[in-house]
């Protein structure tokens, strides 16, 4: 009898890596996931380089690098646009594409062709955006308010290319979201009810709903912008009856939910990583799952907190209330995560470093967020470096740290190799310290009167700006170890085995990397994907899936808090032994 399955604990034989597979059209969600990740990290490097240019320019109060200050405006406009639309929004499509089918025990996403199509919209969209440099780059910020972004004050065609590029990115985003929603709803393996789904899946579900409902509004606004720029209409031009605030409102109606698109999957990652590396169940699973959905819903009601200095005064008040309210489900998550690590047995892997770093930085971003939600305080902080500080604490201290946590966590599954932990920790500390040095001081310069998006500033802010810039240079340099690590570990890292972290979620119950059809046999989910410390989890990790499988089929064992009755002995042979979790 030929063994049809790898024996327990066996490591995956190295399959030859073919670069051409990743450079061409593929329907395999794992290939598409890697294509997404490599693409978005490339744009991350470009966006980061632009940030370094910004910080060099701000070393002196008089725009030392860019004599023509409109070039500076182009640099930060591109920095923001690239980091948001070409990195933080699609990166979760990348991780989601690779891991959602694995985590729910499916062979692929619901619509493999649509999946590939959605990805392949991204590189041309990015190229189109960057091509804007040649014809005259956009200079109106990533928010592109009218009339500055209109045909009179932004004559350069780069602003038009910006609008077309964002259209393509939006379509890609929506198609991906539809794919995720259908996959998560219809293709979970038998035995995995909604509340046995890992929290990363919940977070992708919530995010996809946001994308589906919000991105069309960006599409509508961009369409009208293109008409104003190309067809001579005057929808946003006040001189001829249009309304510049129409753009502002519709833009933020998308862009506020967009920030939740960028962070909510990060919340999902945090639940995975904190639980696995504390060896404890996630504290308050249902609360975290449902609070993600609450944040998705509430996120649609807060957008005009970006407009506290713009709207008619009394219309500002409801948005203060909703913006304060959204702190509550977010707080629930933070406290639940603290409850997860409390009394755990923490393994300080690099992934865990970034997850803990996220917790320490995101709470600061959350507190400054509540400060901004109070209208009178916002009067001082809006449009200043205080906001730049807040957004980087949540985008970088939050989302990017979660991206790194995910990368270090899942790299072994994707490549079959472990990343170097020492280099990883070095990466973490350079990033953490550089980040604090760079962005903490901005809170002060903002409140003291330094507006954002300025190539030149009042000389009294120079000392803070020098400190910020040196922190930023440290932060920038500090990202290089990650890329070096990713590259060298790929060829020389220790082989990972199926489940180096001894995790309970389904992606770890197959080889690293997984075979093309994802699993060697029918995947059997753990009754509780966070059941660390329970005897069921111990036996699951020891390879004994079968009682769970039969129990699941019988409709039992789907409640993680209810013990599963003993099952009768089943015949076993070496052929029947399922893939084991242990390394």
């Amino acid at each position, binding site marked *: *009898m030929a063994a*049809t399955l790898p024996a327990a604990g066996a490591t995956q034989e190295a399959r030859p890596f073919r670069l051409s597979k990743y450079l061409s059209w593929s329907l395999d969600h794992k290939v598409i996931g890697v294509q997404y990740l490599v693409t978005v990290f490339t744009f991350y490097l470009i966006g980061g380089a632009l940030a370094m240019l910004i910080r060099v320019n701000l070393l002196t109060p008089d725009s030392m690098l860019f004599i023509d200050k409109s070039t500076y405006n182009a640099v930060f406009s591109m920095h923001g646009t690239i980091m948001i639309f070409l990195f933080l929004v699609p990166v979760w499509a990348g991780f989601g594409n690779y891991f959602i089918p694995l985590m729910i*025990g*499916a*062979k692929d996403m*619901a*619509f493999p062709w*649509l999946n590939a199509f959605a990805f392949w919209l991204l590189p041309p969209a990015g190229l189109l955006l960057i091509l804007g440099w040649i014809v005259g780059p956009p200079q109106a910020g990533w928010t592109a308010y009218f009339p500055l972004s209109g045909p009179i004050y932004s004559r350069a065609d780069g602003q038009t290319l910006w609008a077309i590029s964002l259209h393509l990115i939006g379509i890609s985003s*929506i198609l991906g*979201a*539809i794919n995720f*929603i*259908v996959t998560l*709803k*219809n*293709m979970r*393996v038998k035995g995995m009810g909604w509340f046995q789904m890992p929290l990363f899946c919940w977070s992708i579900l919530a995010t996809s709903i946001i994308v*589906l*409902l919000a*991105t*069309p*509004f960006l*599409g*509508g*606004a961009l*369409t*009208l912008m293109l*008409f104003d720029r190309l*067809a*001579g*209409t*005057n*929808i946003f031009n006040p001189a*001829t*009856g*249009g*309304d510049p605030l*129409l753009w502002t409102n*519709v833009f933020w109606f998308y862009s506020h939910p967009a920030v939740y698109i960028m962070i909510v999957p990060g919340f999902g990652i945090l639940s995975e990583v904190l639980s696995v590396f504390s060896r404890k169940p996630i504290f308050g699973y249902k609360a975290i799952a449902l609070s993600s959905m609450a944040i998705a819903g509430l996120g649609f009601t807060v957008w005009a907190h970006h407009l506290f200095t713009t709207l008619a005064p009394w219309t500002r008040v409801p948005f203060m209330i909703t913006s304060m309210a959204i702190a509550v489900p977010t707080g629930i998550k933070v406290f639940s995560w603290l409850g997860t690590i409390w009394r755990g047995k923490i393994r300080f892997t690099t992934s865990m470093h970034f997850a803990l770093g996220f917790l320490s930085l995101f709470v600061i971003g959350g507190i400054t967020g509540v400060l901004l939600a109070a209208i009178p305080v916002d009067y001082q902080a809006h449009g200043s470096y205080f906001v730049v500080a807040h957004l980087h604490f949540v985008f970088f201290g939050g989302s990017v740290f979660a991206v790194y946590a995910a990368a270090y966590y899942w790299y072994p599954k994707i490549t079959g190799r472990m990343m170097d932990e020492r280099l990883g920790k070095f990466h973490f500390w350079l990033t953490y310290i550089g980040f604090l040095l760079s962005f903490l001081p901005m809170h002060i310069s903002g409140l003291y009167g330094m507006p954002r998006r300025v190539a030149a500033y009042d000389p009294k802010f120079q000392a803070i700006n020098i400190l910020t810039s040196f922190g930023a240079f440290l932060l920038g340099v500090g990202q290089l170890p990650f890329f070096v690590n990713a590259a060298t570990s790929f060829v020389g890292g220790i082989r990972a085995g199926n489940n180096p972290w001894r995790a309970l979620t389904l992606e770890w119950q197959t080889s690293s990397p997984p075979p093309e*059809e*994802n*699993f*060697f*046999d*029918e*995947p059997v989910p753990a009754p509780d994907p966070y059941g660390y410390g329970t005897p069921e989890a111990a036996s699951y990790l020891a390879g004994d899936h079968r009682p769970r499988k039969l129990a699941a089929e019988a409709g039992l064992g789907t409640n993680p808090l209810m013990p599963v009755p003993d099952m009768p002995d*089943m*015949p076993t*042979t070496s*052929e*029947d032994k*399922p893939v084991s979790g242990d390394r």
Partner: protein
Amino acid sequence: MTTKYPAPQETTPGQQLSNNRLLITLTIIALSLVFACLIYSNFIVRNAQGSWPPAGVDRMDSLTPLLMTAILILSSGAAIMAVRSLKAGQRGPLLTYLYVTIGGGLIYSVWMLAFLARLLTTFNGVYSALFLALWFVHVVHAVAVLLYLGYVTAQVRRGRYSVAEGWFPLEGSTNLWHFVTIVWIVLFVVLYIV
């Protein structure tokens, strides 16, 4: 004695159908929101003017658009009949109804594209700008759905789709066509009646 586990779950035809239906539903939701955004914008800009149409601007002729409304409703009706024919196994009528649907759609699209081309050269401020924007987005989507319907018709001519074999592309494309018609009716009301 060996117990072989079955291969990892293949997507069953039933599951694929469920997936496809959800795809169409979610697509229609997303597209509805694009039009909701444009309709909202229309009202905001409209309210910023003193009167509607603004002073000195002629009202757009609504007779031909009304005719187009009738044509689109008829084409949707033909699409419904096409689906009924397939379910009754009548290939001939199925094809005929599909041709009528596409024919109606083509008449609308050609008229609209010509109208918009003319409008581009003669427009006069926000009044025509809104017509231009809203109608353009509509006809772009109508043409896209027409292409899908064209593909489905070609497949029907090759003998594909039946109750036994499955006929989702016909269902999906006709549902999308109904969506095109409904959006047209809403836009017509918003632009000409309200």
